[in-house]
């Protein structure tokens, strides 16, 4: 082979796989293994054993007897085992079977007449490159045609059916009885086949002659492939592959002695079969119908196939996924005071992660400062690369910083600590969408957790109950710029998933926004100052809304200070429901948001205006119309003031918040009685057979359905009684109404009743014989006996109710566990199928071969990230704009 310069880059055009020929194996082999033992009694490797020095140098200082290199330079060399009798490679069993079936048992020609074979081959050649799928079909057809022939069209010999028993046994169905074809017979037949005939069977005879599939000589990989490890006790443990190979040598030598000593044929056959099994196990130890090679009758050996297969195998574990340097992982915790683009990095981590700084005339002083600080004092440096000597100096051991700083030259590279303003990639698993890895600006902080702004929780799906996140440092200017321009958090406020903002307020931000903007809130000058200072506001105050007895401002006035001056927005608030419902600006309840020319005129801000994952809201409009920088400013200023409002007012809950007056309780009790009566009547009707069944349902199903319906209504009505008796400024109620946390259901469950508990969408029926619990009679169909809970969390549950609630709750847990694993695997398959599709410059979607998948991306060529919730244009918005409203 021609020796190429190792450092020269080159392009791989294609890779072609074939079967290794015995000739090739012989050529690359440097040693023939004939002895199964590895070490002599004095501890030196056996010559002709599996640790023969000719496999390559691996000990420090050892010189390779083959190439003369030390262990750093020696690439390792192959050896071989000359098998006493040939053996079938089990993974080619199927292919060999097809060839045996399709070719003549005497002359080796394909069982298709000359003329037709020539025609088919010509056709195959023309199809092969362009219509690979068709070519495959053609081959399948050829195989079918050939294997059904009973007589050779060339030599006229009769053909017999071949039976294949996986993984490596063949029988020929001769008229005088079935006989086994041993590997020698098989190999002889394969040798007789003609190259052109093989091509018709889909085999490239130049790269893979079929007889090579029956091996006569087994390659033995170099020691670097199967390194031995020395245990602390001084014992040597060999690699699994070495053990497997030793077994092969042992069986091979046994077979050899049998043959030379003229042992009975049955014994030879037996040893031969054992050799076949051992070689098969060496290739794949998990083949069916094979004796597994084990470690002293216990753990199966990890042989060749096991190294490659599966999640931790070479392909998925080492090639598709790698471990990396310059990364960090720790627990995350919230910091509402840093920006959304920032991440707080613990000092300890900042002193380990480094960025290479190439010394220039402009930064040489800065670089000297880092060196003088050394590796332990932040901001310092850990290594210095000198251009002139090409040496790498480790500052942990080279303590003369002063001299090093002075001798610093232009072109040297200083590995400096991570400092404020560096850009890093931040990631939380599972990385389900592109927002799972975003670029953040570093802020070095004390303590040991990564700090992140609460507004970026939604894209990462992060919370702080112990979540950990990963951080990666880009180290080239190219990578840093790419991270800054493409991955920075503010570039991902809008998501391509559904055309809306994925970053936005949650929980306290929403309650805070509501409490700031609600009509009842007025703020004194002092309070206004405190709110605005949190947002970092600089500038004058507007004219106060109220002048006497004190100057006071509304929250809406404060919000207006942060909005773009020409912003117009209209939309319903989350609280716009039930009694607070209105459909246009003529709204008494302050539940319709109007922003006119940057002035927030009416409507409270809640989940529908500033919430995360809510398309077509205020934040969405700003991000779309004014760009990500304007949206980021809003998130970094106004949103912080929402939190400040909460800090001043406080938001909490007490038992009294879910108290409802005795009159309301009576009302609920009466309602419950009423419904119970009605259900009792239904059950009675059912027992008497008078119940009207729902079309398409049995009588039992109809009853169940009707009962569930009734109980559903009961809970809703009880809930609305509770809600109607609640103070609208009750903190829990605020949270539910604004969408900050919880909903009407949760309030109902706390104040009124839990309602029907279900398992698999039905009332709870299982447990004891014909009843759920021993507290009830057999066959009792009443609500209480079938999982209806009329108690609430405030007053407490009865023992039976606790049980039913637990049953319902358990189902939820099981569901989430099952769902995540299933959808995770589905997503993996989907990604594998789609990952290399590309939107090309002409708008088409293509795979890497240039095959067209879609003629225009999404059929309309629109990037969903910049749409209004999927629609390319929002006509209403444009009309409003044109009309100047």
């Amino acid at each position, binding site marked *: 082979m021609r020796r190429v310069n190792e450092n020269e880059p080159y392009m791989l055009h294609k890779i072609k796989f074939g079967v290794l020929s015995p000739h090739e194996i012989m050529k690359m082999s440097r040693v023939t293994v004939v002895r199964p033992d590895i070490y002599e009694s004095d501890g030196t490797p056996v010559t002709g054993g599996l640790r023969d020095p000719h496999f390559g140098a691996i000990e420090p200082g050892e010189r390779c007897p083959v190439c003369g290199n030390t262990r750093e330079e020696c690439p390792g060399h192959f050896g071989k085992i000359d098998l006493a009798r040939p053996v079938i490679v089990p993974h080619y069993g199927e292919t060999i079977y097809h060839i045996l079936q399709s070719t003549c048992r005497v002359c080796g020609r394909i069982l298709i007449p000359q003329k037709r074979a020539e025609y088919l081959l010509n056709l195959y050649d023309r199809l092969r490159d362009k219509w690979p799928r068709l070519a495959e079909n053609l081959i399948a057809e050829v195989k079918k045609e050939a294997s059904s022939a009973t007589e050779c069209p060339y030599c006229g010999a009769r053909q017999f059916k071949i039976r294949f028993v996986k993984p490596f046994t063949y029988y020929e169905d001769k008229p005088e009885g079935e006989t086994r074809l041993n590997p020698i017979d098989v190999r002889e037949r394969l040798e007789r086949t003609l190259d052109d005939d093989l091509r018709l069977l889909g085999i490239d005879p130049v790269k893979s002659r079929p007889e090579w599939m029956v091996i006569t000589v087994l390659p033995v990989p170099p020691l670097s492939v199967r390194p031995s490890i020395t245990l602390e006790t001084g014992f040597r443990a060999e690699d699994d592959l070495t053990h497997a190979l030793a077994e092969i040598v042992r069986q091979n030598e046994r077979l050899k002695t049998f043959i030379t000593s003229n042992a009975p044929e049955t014994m030879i056959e037996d040893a031969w079969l054992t050799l076949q099994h051992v070689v098969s196990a060496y290739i794949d130890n998990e083949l069916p119908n094979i004796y597994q090679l084990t470690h002293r009758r216990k753990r199966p050996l990890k042989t060749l196939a096991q190294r490659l297969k599966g999640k931790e195998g070479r392909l998925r574990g080492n090639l598709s996924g790698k471990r990396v340097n310059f990364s960090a992982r720790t627990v995350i915790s919230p910091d509402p005071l840093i920006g959304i683009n920032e991440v707080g990095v613990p000092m300890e981590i900042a002193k380990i992660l480094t960025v290479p700084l190439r010394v220039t005339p402009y930064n040489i002083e800065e670089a000297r400062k880092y060196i003088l600080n050394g590796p332990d004092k932040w901001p310092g440096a850990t290594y210095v690369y000198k251009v002139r000597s090409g040496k790498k100096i480790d500052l942990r051991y080279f303590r003369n910083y002063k001299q090093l700083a002075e001798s610093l030259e232009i072109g040297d590279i200083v590995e400096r600590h991570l400092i404020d303003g560096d850009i890093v990639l931040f990631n939380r698993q599972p990385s389900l969408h592109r927002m799972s890895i975003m670029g953040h600006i570093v802020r070095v902080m004390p303590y040991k957790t990564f700090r992140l702004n609460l507004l970026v929780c939604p894209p990462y799906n992060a919370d702080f109950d112990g979540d950990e996140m990963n951080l990666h440092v880009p180290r080239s200017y190219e990578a840093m710029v790419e991270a800054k321009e493409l991955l920075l958090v503010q570039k991902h406020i809008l998501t391509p998933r559904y055309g809306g903002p994925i970053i936005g307020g949650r929980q306290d931000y929403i309650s805070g926004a509501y409490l700031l903007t609600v009509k009842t809130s007025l703020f004194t000058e002092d309070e206004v100052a405190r709110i605005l200072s949190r947002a970092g506001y600089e500038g004058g105050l507007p004219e106060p809304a109220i002048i006497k007895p004190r100057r006071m401002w509304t929250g809406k006035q404060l919000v207006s200070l942060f909005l773009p001056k020409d912003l117009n927005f209209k939309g319903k608030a989350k609280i716009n429901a039930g009694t607070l419902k209105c459909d246009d600006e003529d709204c008494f309840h302050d539940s319709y948001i109007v922003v006119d020319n940057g002035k927030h005129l009416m409507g409270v801000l809640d989940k529908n205006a500033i919430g995360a994952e809510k398309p077509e809201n205020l934040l969405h409009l700003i991000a779309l119309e004014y760009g990500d920088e304007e949206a980021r400013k809003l998130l970094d200023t106004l949103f912080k003031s929402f939190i400040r409002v909460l800090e001043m007012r406080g938001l909490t809950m007490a038992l009294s918040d879910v108290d409802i007056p005795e009159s309301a309780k009576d009302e609920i009790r009466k309602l419950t009685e009423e419904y119970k009566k009605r259900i009792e009547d239904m059950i009675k009707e059912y027992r008497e057979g008078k119940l009207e069944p729902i079309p398409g349902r049995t009588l039992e199903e109809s009853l169940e359905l009707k009962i569930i319906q009734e109980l559903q209504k009961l809970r809703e009505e009880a809930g609305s009684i509770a809600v109607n008796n609640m103070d609208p400024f009750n903190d829990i109620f605020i949270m539910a109404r604004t969408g900050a946390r919880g909903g009407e259901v949760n309030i109902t469950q706390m104040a009124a009743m839990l309602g029907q508990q279900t398992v698999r969408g039905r009332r709870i029926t299982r447990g004891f014989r014909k009843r759920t619990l021993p507290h009830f009679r057999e066959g009792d169909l009443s609500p209480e006996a079938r999982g209806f809970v009329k108690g609430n969390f405030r007053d407490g549950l009865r023992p039976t109710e606790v049980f039913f609630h637990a049953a319902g709750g358990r189902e939820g847990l099981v569901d989430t566990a099952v769902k995540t694993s299933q959808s995770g695997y589905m997503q993996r398959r989907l990604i594998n199928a789609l990952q290399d599709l590309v939107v090309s410059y*002409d708008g088409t979607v293509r795979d890497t071969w240039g095959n067209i998948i879609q003629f225009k991306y999404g059929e*309309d060529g629109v990037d969903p990230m910049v749409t209004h919730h999927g629609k390319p244009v929002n006509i209403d918005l444009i009309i409003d704009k044109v009309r100047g409203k």
Partner: protein
Amino acid sequence: MVNTNKVQLLQLPLAEVVEGLPSKSVKKIDKRILKHELVPEHRVLTLEEAAEVLGRLRVKPWQLPHISINDPVISLIGAKPGDIIEIKRKSPTAGETITYRVVVPY
């Protein structure tokens, strides 16, 4: 102007494959399916049109999405392997889209 090379490219060995392989029995297909709302309009392109499409997209015929010769509509409109079909189809995002497919004999 039609590039003759492109036209030649369209002379595919596909039709031969059909002859070369044992043919499967053809089921009779109800013509009314063509009028069904959910069946989009299929049309066989002429050689010149096909060459133009391939030129515009800069693809070889086998890089287009495939459609089986056994597809009910294809057998009804009498398309042959190697033909290029234009399909006009309603789209939830774009109103109406045009796609092209090449007929394959499997």
